[in-house]
């Protein structure tokens, strides 16, 4: 009964959204006053929430007559994971997505005041268009309430063990908070196209920054999870799924900056609208890539090309609709504002273009395997880290450089300023260059680029703060920006340090033998074997001794063999210290009984995620300062 109630409320929310969209469209074309649709927005949220609760209840009470529960849960799963198992598969995560989307719409309804209720209704109409499409998609193609009657199974297949993990339980909700949040600026931008102008650019800036912060956190959590759970010792794999979350992030970053210019100077209006539209389309294309199964990746959703086709059609229709509105919009400003090549506007424009190019390059690399497949008739190719590093690092380098210098320029024309900032920046640059070059005997070009990027951003920030010391209000008001920029600098530094100072050693090691890496003495002390019916697992205990502190610790990497299918799973073990991580993973066992083990030291790898956290905090600071400010 409960799943049917859930299904009922899901359909109810879909109907409400459809109604809102139709009513708003009617009101626009026939220029009729209609009632305030806010109430319906609350109803819609209530309906989805009840539907979500119904599915959670089915999970908690192990109702295996529900197909989705049966395929993602198990009676022995702890309650905590039963709750999070709801978004462990495709259908449930769609439900979570529309729940979060309706939550954003509620927040928008509560916190944005519009002069005319009609204008706000239009925006509800646009958000409801998106809601309607995805609720419809969920109901008709991936309904989580589908039943397994008349013979329900006694037991469910388990939740994928990789997903039974804390970071995973909050990673998807955070990502969806980011994706769904982008729908609000999308609606505001479309509203601008049909003439709703109430503070539109400052609102786009605010809402985008908020969802951007969640997106940042979501991506960082995913990267952290991959680092410790997948056990490859890397933090970013250029996996299609990772890329498809990075692309909207880059577009959203560009959107925030473009909206700042539009807000301040009333230029780049078209840019801002287009970016708001592209951010949403980008995240839907990402969703399509992940869920249609046309790309293979470590994230496996139930793959179904027909579902993919419907998702593609939805995205296409939304794109056509928004491009049509954009095309007929009146965006010619009454008075044009001039800016020179040497102004904040110009720097932001360049960086926006570069961010978009970066997004395009990553998208191209991600879908290149499909393009290749089409033109060669079925041959496959993989695009790996070398392509992405080679293309993205140079672009990112210029972005960082313009970012560092850009914040020192002023609006309109910076020629009046003295140019010593540029000089200072140049000096810092040169010093870093010489410092790293001589001290570290030339690390590889990529990490070298990242030090320069770090230096450019940090020196820009430091000069910015010094320059404005007598104008404290300015710095305080821009605290969010300063923090977020600082965060990205920290992250870039982390990337540089990890890629240039990581040490790794592959050793052949037997029982009782030891090896030294950096300050650690790693000794193999014990081997154990655990046998199961059709696979066996070898657990090797290493004693790691820190030569400086004399502290000892045990690490137990494992290797499981599925002899018949030749499948091997390795589980590494990590010794976490503030300064560095020591990472041991097993690779082969030799006939002599010795092991080939890979020992890695990852210095300051945590800076990457700390940087992302700081960026997120910066985003929140920017949003909440502005609320107070207004």
């Amino acid at each position, binding site marked *: 009964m409960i799943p049917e109630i859930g299904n009922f409320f899901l359909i109810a929310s879909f109907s409400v959204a459809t109604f809102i969209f139709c009513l708003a469209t009617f009101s626009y074309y026939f220029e009729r006053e209609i009632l305030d649709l806010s109430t319906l927005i609350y109803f819609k949220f209530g309906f989805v929430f009840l539907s979500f609760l119904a599915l959670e209840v089915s999970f908690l009470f192990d109702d*295996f007559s529900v*197909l989705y529960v*049966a*395929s993602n849960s198990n009676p022995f799963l702890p309650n905590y994971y039963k709750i999070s198992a709801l978004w462990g598969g495709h259908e449930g995560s769609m439900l979570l997505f529309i729940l979060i989307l309706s939550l954003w719409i509620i927040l928008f309804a509560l916190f944005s005041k519009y002069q005319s209720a009609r204008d706000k209704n239009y925006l509800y109409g646009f958000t409801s268009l998106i809601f309607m499409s995805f609720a419809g998609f969920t109901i008709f193609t991936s309904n989580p309430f*589908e039943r*397994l009657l008349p*013979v*329900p*199974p*006694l*037991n469910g*297949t388990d939740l994928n063990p990789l997903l039974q993990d804390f970071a995973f339980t909050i990673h998807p909700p955070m990502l969806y908070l980011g994706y769904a949040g982008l729908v609000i600026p999308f609606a505001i931008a479309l509203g601008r196209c049909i003439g709703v102008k109430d503070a539109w650019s400052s609102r786009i800036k605010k809402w985008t920054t908020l969802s951007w912060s969640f997106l940042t956190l979501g991506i960082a959590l995913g990267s952290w999870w991959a680092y410790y759970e997948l056990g490859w010792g890397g933090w970013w794999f250029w996996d299609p799924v990772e890329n498809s979350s990075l692309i909207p992030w880059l577009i959203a970053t560009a959107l925030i900056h473009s909206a700042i210019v539009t807000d301040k100077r009333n230029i*780049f209006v*078209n*840019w801002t609208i*287009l970016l708001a539209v*592209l951010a949403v*389309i980008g995240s839907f*294309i990402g969703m*399509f890539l992940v869920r*249609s199964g*046309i790309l293979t990746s470590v994230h*496996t959703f139930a*793959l*179904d*090309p027909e579902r*993919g*086709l419907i998702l*593609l059609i939805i*995205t*296409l229709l939304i*794109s056509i609709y928004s*491009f049509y509105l*954009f*095309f007929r*919009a009146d*965006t010619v400003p009454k008075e044009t504002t001039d800016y020179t090549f040497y102004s904040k506007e110009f720097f932001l424009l360049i960086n926006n273009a570069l961010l978009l190019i970066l997004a*395009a390059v990553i*998208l191209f690399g991600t*879908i290149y395997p*499909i*393009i290749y*497949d*089409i033109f060669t*008739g*079925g041959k*496959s190719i993989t695009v790996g880290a070398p392509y992405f590093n080679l293309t993205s690092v140079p672009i990112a380098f210029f972005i960082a450089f313009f970012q560092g210098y850009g914040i020192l320029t002023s609006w309109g024309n910076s020629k009046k300023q003295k140019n010593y900032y540029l000089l200072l920046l140049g000096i810092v640059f040169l010093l870093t260059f010489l410092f790293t070059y001589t001290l570290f005997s030339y690390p590889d070009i990529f990490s070298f680029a990242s030090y320069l990027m770090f230096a450019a951003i940090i020196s820009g920030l430091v000069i910015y703060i010094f320059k404005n010391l007598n104008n404290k209000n300015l710095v305080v008001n821009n605290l969010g920006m300063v923090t977020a920029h600082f965060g990205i600098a920290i992250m870039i530094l982390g990337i540089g340090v990890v890629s240039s100072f990581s040490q790794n050693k592959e050793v052949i090691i037997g029982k009782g033998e030891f090896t030294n890496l950096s300050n650690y003495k790693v000794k193999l002390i014990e081997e154990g074997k655990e046998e*199961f*019916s*059709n*696979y066996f697992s070898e657990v090797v205990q290493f004693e790691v001794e820190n030569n400086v502190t004399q502290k000892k610790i045990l690490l137990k990497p494992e290797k499981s063999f*599925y*002899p*018949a*299918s*030749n*499948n091997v799973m390795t589980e590494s073990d990590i010794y976490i210290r503030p300064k560095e991580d020591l990472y041991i993973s097993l690779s082969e066992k030799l006939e002599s009984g010795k092991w080939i083990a890979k020992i890695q030291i990852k210095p300051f790898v945590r800076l990457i995620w700390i940087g992302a956290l700081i960026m997120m905090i910066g985003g929140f600071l920017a949003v909440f300062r502005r609320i107070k400010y207004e």
Partner: protein
Amino acid sequence: MNKFRLFIFSTISIGILFSIFTLTLLNPNEKLIEVSSFPSFKMKELTGDIINQDAFIEGEYKLINVWATWCVNCKLEHGFLMNLKNKGIKIFGLNYKDDKEKAIRWLDQFGNPYWKTIYDPRGNFGLEIGVSGAPETYLIDKENKIIQKHIGIVNENIWTNKFIKLIK
């Protein structure tokens, strides 16, 4: 910036992107899976008899279908499998993570398309050949190598494109 130019540029790029996606979705060039040999095994059938790799006669193509009573899609696939059986194709069933009594009742009620059904209540055997869920269908060649794997329902279209092509 000129709105019209922006509009044209973004429409064209989005258009190209969507055409690529549509092309891929509509003509999936089926990727060949990595060929791996079928493991030797010793399992029980649903009937209780012992079955091992000797049931796989060399020099014949074999089809293995993974199914369970808890799997709705298996029910949807069932009709097509019955057709295959009526055409004279031998299908091995792999009853996956299921209950014996229910499975037998299911086959009695709806009809049994399988020549022999391997009973794998805990999914251990499935793990060895790489089963991720049900339904799944595997094609094994004359040398007992797995040469094709299909996740999801097999229908006429998939049967012709993914399986018939490989059978020589």
